[in-house]
């Protein structure tokens, strides 16, 4: 009942705005929620929901994918979150490496990686994800887990999208779980309407309404719909653990390339757990100049909101979740995978 009222108010507000409005969601779980609940189809004609770089597996650079597969093929045991196994690079993918005898383990949590490490002391965890998963990896490093870090902090990527100006963004649906860690304050750096929302249909619809009301009245604010989880100051304990172990550096993103200040590297005091240092001899032999996007794959443009999955000629034809060409179709949070599952036709 409440959803119907919110949708009605969205339509009224969009009509008052009168011009085209682009709202970008930058969280893979929001991408899934929007498609699962059919929210895109409920939008008035002048409101477009665009998917941004919120899928951690998708934004992981090809170079890092090639690096972790190289380590696996060189005999280093690897543990990683599941979706990464099917992301293909110049040496195939981790699944294929496993078929060739490499030790590759899928874990749901770093706790499982720590368990596997008891049997395989040389285990390397492929650390990926944004501010939400960083403290978990930091915790595991403090417990003695070796990590290849591709971790990223999220706000610099949003700032880079605005700075690049390739696409008009009128408002951001800010990520829920990232915000649980960083709080609401860091978003102040971007002078654009923003709302942090949760993941139910009502949460997402309410977030969209709150954005439209800001746009209609010319207000620019950071509003929080997800108050049951996200606090103004976030989770300081998690951030303390993260920044005890990691320091900010450059971050390499699929689609956007290098974004200064968005990457997280392991601090010197934990250098013995840094796989990039420990296995430098293996990584130095890899020709990363050959780390290219899969031929024809539009994932990089889809991540930046420049193309929709259906604008890729391979979508649903040669590229499907069973036989994915690029990471946007591999990951369950990827724009192409979500579009295929919920809105193929």
């Amino acid at each position, binding site marked *: 009942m409440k959803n119907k009222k919110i949708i009605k108010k969205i339509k009224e507000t969009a009509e008052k705005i009168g011009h085209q409005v682009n709202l970008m969601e930058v969280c893979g779980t929001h991408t899934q929620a929007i498609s699962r609940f059919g929210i895109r189809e409920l939008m008035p004609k002048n409101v477009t929901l665009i998917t941004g770089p919120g899928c951690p597996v998708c934004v992981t650079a090809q170079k890092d994918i090639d690096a972790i597969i190289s380590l696996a093929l060189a005999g280093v045991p690897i543990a990683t979150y599941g979706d990464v196994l099917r992301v293909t690079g110049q040496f195939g993918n981790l699944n294929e490496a496993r078929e060739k005898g490499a030790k590759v383990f899928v874990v*749901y*949590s770093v*706790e499982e990686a720590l368990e596997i490490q008891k049997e395989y002391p040389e285990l390397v965890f492929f650390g990926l994800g944004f501010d939400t*998963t960083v403290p978990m990896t930091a*915790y595991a490093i403090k417990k003695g887990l070796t990590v290849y870090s591709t971790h990223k902090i999220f706000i610099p990527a949003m700032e880079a999208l605005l700075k690049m100006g390739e696409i008009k963004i009128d408002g951001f649906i800010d990520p829920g779980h990232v915000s649980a860690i960083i709080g609401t304050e860091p978003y102040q750096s971007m002078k654009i309407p923003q709302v942090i929302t949760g993941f139910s249909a009502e949460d997402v619809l309410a977030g969209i309404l709150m954005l439209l009301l800001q746009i209609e009245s010319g207000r620019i604010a950071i509003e929080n719909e997800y108050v049951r*989880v996200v606090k103004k100051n976030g989770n300081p*304990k998690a951030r303390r653990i993260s920044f005890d172990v990691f320091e900010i550096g450059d971050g390499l993103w699929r689609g956007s390339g290098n974004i200064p200040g968005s990457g997280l590297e392991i601090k010197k005091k934990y250098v013995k757990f840094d796989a990039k240092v420990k296995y430098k001899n293996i990584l130095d032999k890899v020709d990363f100049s050959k780390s290219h996007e899969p031929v024809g794959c539009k994932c990089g443009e889809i991540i930046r909101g420049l193309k929709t999955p259906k604008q890729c000629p391979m979508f649903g034809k040669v590229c499907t979740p069973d036989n994915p060409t690029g990471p946007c179709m591999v990951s369950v949070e990827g724009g192409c995978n979500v579009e295929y599952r919920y809105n193929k036709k």
Partner: protein
Amino acid sequence: MKIKGQIAEVDFDGIKKEINVAIVDVKVGDFVMVHAGFAIEKMEPDLVADIQGYLNKDEK
């Protein structure tokens, strides 16, 4: 929820799972948001945004 060191037993609607609580400050009885096997924040399920207020809003 039961807590033993950094591991808590969390009840997900009747299914009990062990969750790491090293990155949050929680006590038995709290609700938590879980991501990749870790509690990432204490939840306050009864705290909701004032959506009704937005529905009644007539901004200009």
